[in-house]
C-alpha cells in the first residue's frame, strides 16, 4: 500500500483526471480523499493505492504531468500522521446500551446521535483503530457505516506545501508572449 499526496486545481473534472489516470496505469485505489486547502483555489488529495514503490513512482510522475496537478508526492516512506473518520450506526437497546458506551469510551469515540433503537458513533483515528472499533461493534449489529478514507500529513518540519515558484509551464507562457 502506497500513500501519495497531491495538490490540484480546485475545479470540475480534476478528480476524474486523477482517478482515470490510476485506472489507465492499472493501479487500484484503496481510498482517495479530496478537500479544499486554506487556499480555496487549491485542493489537497490523499491517495492510498494498491501498488509497489515502482508503481507509486509512476503514479506520482504521471500525476505531475497532468496540467491541473500542481504537485504529487509519494510520502509512504516518511513519518506520517494518518487519520480516518467514520460514522457508525449501531443497533442499541436498553440492555446493551451501557456496554456499548463502555466500548465507545475505550476507543475515545463519541455518540453523536441517539435514537430508541440505535446510536450513531463518530470515531476518528488511524485506519487500524477504526477497524478495531468496528470489530467489537459488529456483535451489536452495525446498521450503517460511512468512512472518509485516509488523510495523511508528514510529521514535524517535513512540509509539503503547494508550489509558489514559477513552473515550467509558466515559463513557457512567458516564452510564448515574447
Amino acid at each position, binding site marked *: 500500500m502506497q500513500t501519495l499526496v497531491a495538490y490540484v*486545481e480546485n475545479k470540475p*473534472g480534476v478528480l476524474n483526471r486523477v482517478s482515470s489516470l490510476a485506472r489507465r496505469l492499472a493501479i487500484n485505489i484503496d481510498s482517495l480523499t479530496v478537500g479544499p486547502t486554506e487556499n480555496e483555489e487549491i485542493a489537497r488529495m490523499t491517495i492510498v493505492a494498491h501498488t509497489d514503490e515502482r508503481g507509486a513512482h509512476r503514479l506520482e*510522475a504521471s500525476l505531475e*504531468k497532468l496540467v491541473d*496537478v*500542481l504537485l504529487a508526492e509519494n510520502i509512504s516512506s516518511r513519518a506520517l500522521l494518518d487519520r480516518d473518520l467514520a460514522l457508525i450506526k449501531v443497533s442499541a437497546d436498553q440492555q446493551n446500551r451501557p456496554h456499548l458506551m463502555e466500548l465507545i469510551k475505550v476507543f475515545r469515540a463519541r455518540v453523536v446521535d441517539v435514537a430508541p433503537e440505535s446510536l450513531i458513533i463518530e470515531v476518528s483515528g488511524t485506519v487500524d483503530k477504526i477497524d478495531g472499533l468496528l470489530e467489537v461493534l459488529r456483535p451489536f449489529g452495525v446498521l450503517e457505516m460511512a468512512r472518509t478514507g485516509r488523510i495523511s500529513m508528514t510529521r514535524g518540519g517535513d512540509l509539503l506545501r503547494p*508550489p509558489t515558484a514559477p513552473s515550467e509551464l*509558466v515559463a*513557457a507562457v512567458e516564452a510564448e508572449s515574447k
Partner: protein
Amino acid sequence: MKLTGAEILCESLTRLGVKEIFGYPGGAILPVYDALGKSKLHHVLVRHEQGATHMADGYARASGGIGVAMATSGPGATNMVTGIATAMLDSSPVVCITGQVSSKVLGSDAFQEIDITGITMPITKHNVVVTRAEDVARTIREAFVIANSGRSGPVLVDITKDAQQASAEFNWETCAPKLPLKRVRKNHDQAEFDRAVEMLNTAKRPLILAGHGIMVSGAMRAFEAFVRTGSYPVAMTLLGIGCFPAKDPLNLGMMGMHGEAWVNNAIQEADLLIAVGMRFDDRVTGDLRTYAKSARKIHIEIDRAEINKNVKVDAALIGDAREVLEKLTPHIETRDHSAWIRHIAELKGDSAVRDIQSLPDTGHLYAAHVINDLWKETNGEAIVVTDVGQHQMWEAQYYHHDRPRTLITSGGLGTMGFALPAAIGAKFAKPDSEVWVVVGDGGFQMTMSELATIVQEKLNIKIAIINNGYLGMVRQWQEFFYDKRYVATPLVAPDFAALANAFGIRGERITKRGEVVPIIRSARESAETVLIDFRVEQEDSVYPMVAAGASLSDMIRRPNNPLVETATEP
C-alpha cells in the same frame, strides 16, 4: 474591439503563426468556418477527420511546429480519436479544435453531442471545454503552450456553439495564458550526474540508444558533439532515425524487433547503454529479463514517468535532451573505442552477403529493391512518410536518412492509414521538399480517400504502394507463428493505377525490377502527384526478426532461401 468567439479563434490562430488548418465542417463548428472564410488562414478540406489529425501530426513532425486539426461535434470529433492517439503515443504537438453543441443543451444528448473531452482524456496531454467567447483566446494560447512544452503532445479544445457565436472584447495583451503554478522538480542531483559521467568515462563497450526525443528537443548538434567526443557507436529507434546521419560510420542503424542482428547483439554485449530521448519500448527491448544484462544504463529523458518504467537504470538524467547533452559533453573524456567498434563490425559477419541488395537479379521484384532504389534516386534527401507494417520496416532498413524529420511514421500506436494524410501535412510544412509516401496495399485502402484532398489542394506528392496482396506483416506472423494459416490476410485491392486516374492522378503499375528506377525518375520529373503501384513479391518477410516477447539475442536471421537461394557465398 468586440469580436465573436469564432472570430477570436481565427484571430488567435493567426497570431500564433498558424497558416493551415486541416479540417471538416459541420453544424456545431459552422460559426468558426464562417469566420475562417474571412481570415487569412488556409483551410484544407479533408475527406475524413482521421485524415485531418494525421495531417496536423505530419505537419508537426515535418516542421517541428504545431499542427492544427478541426472538426465538428459528435462523429466529427470521434473520427479524430485514432489520429489524436497516434500523436499522443509519438509525442507529436497537435492542437485539435472541435465544435460542441450549445452550452445550454450540454448533457441533453442533443443532435451530434458527444463528450469528446471525456473520450479523449487518456489520449491527450490536456483537453478543455470552452463555453464562453471571452475564454477562447486564452484557452487556445494555453493549448499551444501545453502542446509544445516539456514532452510534447496533443491538446483538444472543445468550443460550444454559443461560445463561437457570442461576442466578447478581444485584447491579445490581456488574454495571455494563465496556467497553474506547478512545482518544478530538480531534474537530477549532482551525485546522479557525477555517477553518469563516471560510467561514461570508464565504459569499455558503450553504446547509445538514440530516440525521437533528440529530434523533438532540437538536440542534433549537441548529440553529434556528444557522440564524437566519446566516439560512441549509435543505435537508433524507429522514430530516432534521422537524428544522426545514417552515413556516419558510428551509426549502426535501427535496433529492436527488425533491427539488424549485429545492432541487437551489440546492445546485448555492451557494458554501458546511454539512452537518449527513448523509452525502452517492448519493440526495442524484447524480453526484459534477458535485455542488456551486462550493461549499466544511463537514461536521458524529459519525462520522469519513463524512468525505470520498463528498464531499471543506473543513472537518470531528467531533462531536455539538448540541455542535458550540452551539460554532459564537457565532462566526457575522449576515449579510444576502436576495438569495440571493430568488434561490432565483426558481428556483422555474413549479414551483408545475406542482404537482398547483394543478391543477383532473379527477375523477382522485392519491396527492399524498390525502397533501396528510391533511396538512391532521391539521394536520400526526400521526406518519406511511411504507414505501418512490412514496408515500414523495409523503409527503415533500406532508406538511409541523413537528416532529421525526413522519416515520418507512426511508431508507438502503429496506425495503419497514417501515411497518406500525414504526407499531405508534411508537404504543407515543407512545400519545397520532395515528399514520398511509402505505404502498403492494406494501409493505403484505409485512408485513400485523401487522394481527393491532394487533388483539391493541387499538391505534388509521390506515392509508392508496396503491393503484395496481403496484410503483409500479419501474414508474416501467421507464417512464423500460426503454421501459415493465412486467416483474413489475403487482400483484394482495386487497380490502384486506375483508381488514381479516377481521381485525376497519374497512376502507374510496376511488376519488374528493371522498371523501378525509370518510373521513379519519371515520377520525380513530374510536377504533379504520381501514384505507383509496385506489385512486389507476395510472401516476402522482413528479416531479421525478434519474435514478440523473445530475447534480443534470439533473432530470426535472413534465410539463405527461399528468396535468396541464388546467393553465392564469397
